[in-house]
């Protein structure tokens, strides 16, 4: 009776098959889609979303949702960008090129902690809180930057190099960073006590406190992680695109990330989600994004695809759950 297990195995296998079929189909029309160059393009589209998706997956597993990640990305990228711009005049010592990485992560973590505090302290629904902070943090980005963009010349070239130079096989550093984050999330989620408690909490929030799980602290941690990873995505945005813009940087990020997470099999009913599934979900979206220009479909249709993907994933999730319930009933009968 490992039906459910098989389904979940199938779920990840299913996404993998979808990726392959999609690539073959596109490749049949446009053979250049199936080249190594194209693979690099696809991979380059994914690192930011992948990092954000790891945090969002944990949030969704804990039965919440975080809409503010794009704005947290913006603030933390902007803080680092400002420091790069002003370091000569503001600090006696030069900020090292990598200084923005810890700074953005810490800024993001603090913003995420703010979300978590509002949610746990006042028992508010995460969706409304993060809808509010989505706006609030975006405004903050404008305020600290005085609505001015951080241009290319201020971003250290070593930082930009992370997105261009490669340690091996022409694959740039940020892709390794993204996969490193995925690996770290895997270890965190599967092999630490608190990681498992996140799954327990999402799986049965009523039972969690009865078994000694500190619900508020775990929730805070989850939102702080979501913030910290948005922060990391923020500094990598600066690296990847070479600028930080108060209005564009990170806007709409949440929808790409949520789409990737739900197509990756994380259940909106909490307790279910895997790093592998999420990685595959991110890659699938990456393939779709890369295929659009080749197929002559304007890039403007991306958002619609994300929306459709979210809805389709929700419907799939529901039918998986119903099969689970049906198999449970059969087991009882």
């Amino acid at each position: 009776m490992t039906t459910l297990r098989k389904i979940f195995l199938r779920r990840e296998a299913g996404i993998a098959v979808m990726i392959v079929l999609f690539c073959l189909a596109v490749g049949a029309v446009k053979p250049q889609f199936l080249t190594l160059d194209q693979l690099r393009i696809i991979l380059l589209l994914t690192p930011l979303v992948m990092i954000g998706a790891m945090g969002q997956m944990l949030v969704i597993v804990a039965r919440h949702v975080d809409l503010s990640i794009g704005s947290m990305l913006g603030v933390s990228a902007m803080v680092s960008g400002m420091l790069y711009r002003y370091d000569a005049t503001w600090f006696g010592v030069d900020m090292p090129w990598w200084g923005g990485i810890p700074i953005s992560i810490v800024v993001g973590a603090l913003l995420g902690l703010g979300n978590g505090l509002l949610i746990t302290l006042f028992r508010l629904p995460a969706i409304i809180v993060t809808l509010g902070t989505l706006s609030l943090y975006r405004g903050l980005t404008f305020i600290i930057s005085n609505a001015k963009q951080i241009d290319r010349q201020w971003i250290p070239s070593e930082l930009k190099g992370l997105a261009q130079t490669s340690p091996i096989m022409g694959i740039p550093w940020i892709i390794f960073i993204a996969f490193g984050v995925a690996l770290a999330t895997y270890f965190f989620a599967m092999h630490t006590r608190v990681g498992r408690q996140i799954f327990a909490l999402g799986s049965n929030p009523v039972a969690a406190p009865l078994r000694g799980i500190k619900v508020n602290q775990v929730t805070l941690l989850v939102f702080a992680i979501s913030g910290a990873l948005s922060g990391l995505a923020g500094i990598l945005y600066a690296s990847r695109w070479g600028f930080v813009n108060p209005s564009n940087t990170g806007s709409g990020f949440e929808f790409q990330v949520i789409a990737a997470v739900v197509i990756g099999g994380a259940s909106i009913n909490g307790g279910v989600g895997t790093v592998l599934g999420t990685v595959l979900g991110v890659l699938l979206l990456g393939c779709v994004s890369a295929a659009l220009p080749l197929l002559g479909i304007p890039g403007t249709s991306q958002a619609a695809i994300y929306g459709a993907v979210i809805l389709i994933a929700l419907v799939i999730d529901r039918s998986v759950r119903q099969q689970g319930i049906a198999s449970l009933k059969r087991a009882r009968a």
Partner: protein
Amino acid sequence: MTDTAVAPLISARGIGKTFATVDVLRDVDLDLLPGEIHALLGENGAGKSTFAKILAGVHRPTRGSIALNGKPVEVTSPVVAQKLGITLIHQEPISFPDLSVAENLVIGAAEDGWFSRVPWAEMTREANRLMDLLGVRIDVTRPMRGLSIADQQMVEIARALASNSRLIIMDEPTAPLTPREVETLFAIARKLRDEGRTIVFISHRLEEVRALCDRVTIFRDGNKIATDTIGNLSDADIIRLMIGRPVKEYMHKTGATIGEVALEVEGLTLPGVFSDISFSVRKGEIVGLGGLVGAGRTDVAKAIFGVTPAASGTVSINGKRVSITDPSQAIALGLAFVPEDRAVAGIFRTLSVEQNISVAVPKQLAPGGFIRRAVERAMGEDAVRKLSIRLASLRQPIGELSGGNQQKAILARWLLTDPGVLILDEPTRGIDIGVKAEFYSIIGELAAQGRAILLISSELPELLALCDRVLVMSEGRLTADIPRSRATQEAVMRAAVPRRSTTEGAAA
């Protein structure tokens, strides 16, 4: 095993519990010995489950003290109970369905830091060891979801062993199990007892208690009535102690003239819940539906009313076959249903009393499409007068009223629809004695007006005093139809208590 020779594992003294203003447990003294299986018996609401939950930290006692191995302890939460070595196993275990069996055994229990590694291999090994110990074959790496109830219970028992519990409380564990699963459970319980652990076993099934337990304690109306070695008590003794209360003539049944069949149910079946239920209720007749909690009585009522329609079978109202798939259709056909769980399915807690009363009669309330406040007020005042509902204002939230008055308001809601058939599901649960008597006379009057009444109740005296006939359900089947003249507490109990041997015989 004699009471004096062994020092008790648990000594409870003077335990009392009050919910709101109702005493559900009074001054209970009980010693549980190491190495015994101790049954708690009693009717529904007698207080046995409350007592068990106090031991397990689910409820805090209002009065009294508990000592563990002679030392006084405060069992403030289930987590504390677990640390003290006390585990409560619910009938339908609470678990984390998405986590593996092995994880469910230990999650939350470990004291070490947040970021310490989860020792998967060791955890799995330990879980397998416990399963071997219990002699059950469950793949501990699979998720909890999808396990049968019996297996989930085994996992709970394993969890008790993992935390080395000295006291394991099983709250009606056998109800959802098959006979073979019950045998397995009993074998394990005996084994645990022989290891010197204490098992508290809550059940309605006398045979099971007799087969398994060493001593029994009988509860009635929140009091401990007796504790004795099982061998000293006959079945008749136990049933007498459980019901014992003299049958007070709560009410005189006013002689309603019994007329045509108003509600007729034939072959109603919902697989896994109830099957082949057939009965009828005539105009002016009060038909009781007795049985134990979980026998499927409420499900039958919900099926008739269209909340959860049955899979097959027919319902006829006044001789006409009808199909009811939604409560609104039932109401249109003149049915009314006072549900068992007031807070969940009855009241709109934060809304005004008058809104709660007028909700089922939209057409009377708003003849031209707009709500007429005067009509609503008149409805409310009328109900307050007729049912003597005590309240400060019709506009106050119904949640501020006492349980009895909330229930009266719900009854008033249905009387406005002038129903031909009334289904009352535990209408007097959680209501003071004085108000109960009022309810009984109201129910009698309703029957006298020629309404058909189906009364679901777990209180035997209530059924016997009020009903013209008593139907009894057990494990999803109708097991008896007893006319008033032959209805006794013993007769109803006998039909309500499932008998393993007979069900097995029937299944064979």
